[in-house]
């Protein structure tokens, strides 16, 4: 219990900064939504002059994009990037910081098993990520009800924001697994940022096609926002794969950390 509370306290400042950053981003994007909707109105008027086929094709995508949900899709992609960086940094640093800050021998000679240590740290990270998500969701719900021009489905909105939490869990697990392989991680940033941006760019560039196999590579594409909007649910195969990845990564981290040689001073 002690370790859990201690880790909560140590993660507190970072969590506050990340939550504020994500909310500020949402505020920034929503503040330009009104002018964006105006632009879209002009295009809809222009559409009147096009042949029916073009109008149908463009009209559908326009309605999608300019609805508050459609706009939120774009906002959300940047928010998920920030959330993923936060989760990845939590995951990579929470175990490696003992080695980095020379507190390993203090912690490991205490009469607690290594799995207990990992559990406490993991639970603390998950709690902080959950707190981030809850506060963000409340803030964005308030924002969206201020800015909206037409009604939206609360269930869809909730599901979209819940996918942020799942994505963060995936990156937390990946970060945890990556960190146990290193004897001493001197700096958490290069590997965290590299991994997150790598997956993000792969997601943006590669997964635009319809080939389903490619989407499995990048966690950012596991939760497809247009699909959620259309069907108000997640795609089962991706949900299962994501859960498997989280479970396997966390289990592997436990096993490796328990058997690992940890150096007191190196």
């Amino acid at each position, binding site marked *: 219990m002690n370790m859990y509370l201690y880790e909560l306290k140590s993660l507190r400042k970072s969590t506050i900064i990340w939550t504020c950053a994500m909310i500020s981003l949402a505020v920034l994007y929503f503040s*330009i939504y009104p002018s964006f909707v105006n632009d879209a109105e002009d295009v809809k008027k222009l559409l009147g002059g096009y042949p029916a086929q073009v109008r149908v094709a463009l009209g559908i995508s326009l309605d999608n994009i300019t609805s508050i949900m459609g706009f939120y899709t774009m906002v959300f992609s940047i928010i998920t990037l920030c959330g993923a960086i936060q989760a990845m940094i939590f995951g990579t640093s929470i175990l490696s910081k003992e080695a980095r800050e020379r507190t390993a021998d203090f912690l490991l000679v205490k009469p607690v098993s290594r799995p207990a240590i990992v559990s406490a740290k993991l639970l603390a990270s998950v709690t902080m990520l959950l707190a981030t998500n809850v506060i963000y969701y409340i803030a964005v719900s308030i924002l969206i009800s201020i800015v909206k021009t037409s009604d939206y489905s609360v269930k869809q909105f909730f599901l979209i924001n819940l996918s942020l939490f799942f994505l963060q869990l995936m990156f937390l697990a990946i970060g945890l697994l990556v960190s146990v392989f290193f004897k001493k991680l001197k700096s958490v*940033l290069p590997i965290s940022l590299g991994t997150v941006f790598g997956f993000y760019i792969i997601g943006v560039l590669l997964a635009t*096609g319809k080939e389903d196999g490619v989407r499995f590579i990048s966690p950012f594409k596991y939760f497809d926002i247009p699909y959620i909007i259309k069907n108000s649910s997640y795609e089962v195969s991706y949900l299962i794969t994501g859960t498997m990845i989280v479970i396997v990564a966390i289990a592997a981290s436990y096993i490796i950390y328990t058997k690992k040689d940890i150096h007191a001073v190196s």
Partner: protein
Amino acid sequence: MNIFLRELKANRKALIIWSVCMFLLVVSGMGKYTAYSSGGQNNEIFNKMPDSLKALLGFGSLDVSKMSGYYAMLFLYIELTAAIHAVLLGSGIIAKEERDKTTEFLITKPVSRAAIITSKLLAALVNVLILNIVLLVSSIVMVSAYNKGEDISSEIVMFNLSMLIVQLIFLSLGAALAAFIKKPKAAGSLSTGILLVAFVISKITDLTDSMNYLNLFSPFKYFSYTNIVEGNGLNVIITILSLVLVAIFIVLVYLFYQKRDINV
């Protein structure tokens, strides 16, 4: 000379990993070109959409069915990755002494602090140049492998020149922040945060024209991609101003580091 060579050797592994990753990025990006270029009849529709809608779809004001427009869209992500590398390199190379507890050893050597900074910055510059050249070569090779239209090699060179300037800006910014901040470990996070803000700003100003003054804060937007795509090259005034900015940051590195209370 020693410090310069030692820093080069220390960063060698990281540079190789980053170069390979960037090369793979260019390869996979160009591989997707066929998907974008084959939808020829979509052109008409694309051209009539207002810029904000195109920004939402990710294209901004570029014509992505032509190689030059597609490369411009791809380039933003290449530039983002190169900027991350530069920022981490710049802040890391100054902060790592205090992080790894090697400051005492280094400072007590009979080299002035200015000489130390010079060697480190030169080593960082060499790293940034190597990454830039790797990108230039892989871009030219990959583009000509997939290109069906006209040759855009001179435009690629222009793009890479603008990227070099952006890399230098972030490199010197990271170094200046690391020299200034009391806690060296926080320097990396802070400079990355600034970079992310700059990236988000570039995305937002794509969406709407009303906040174009924000472009001042985003080095990604200093050079207009549409200008380069049309073959107009880089705006001379902005290039000079950017180089002045880099020079200011570098002077700040020296100033802060000389006056700094080094924690052993």
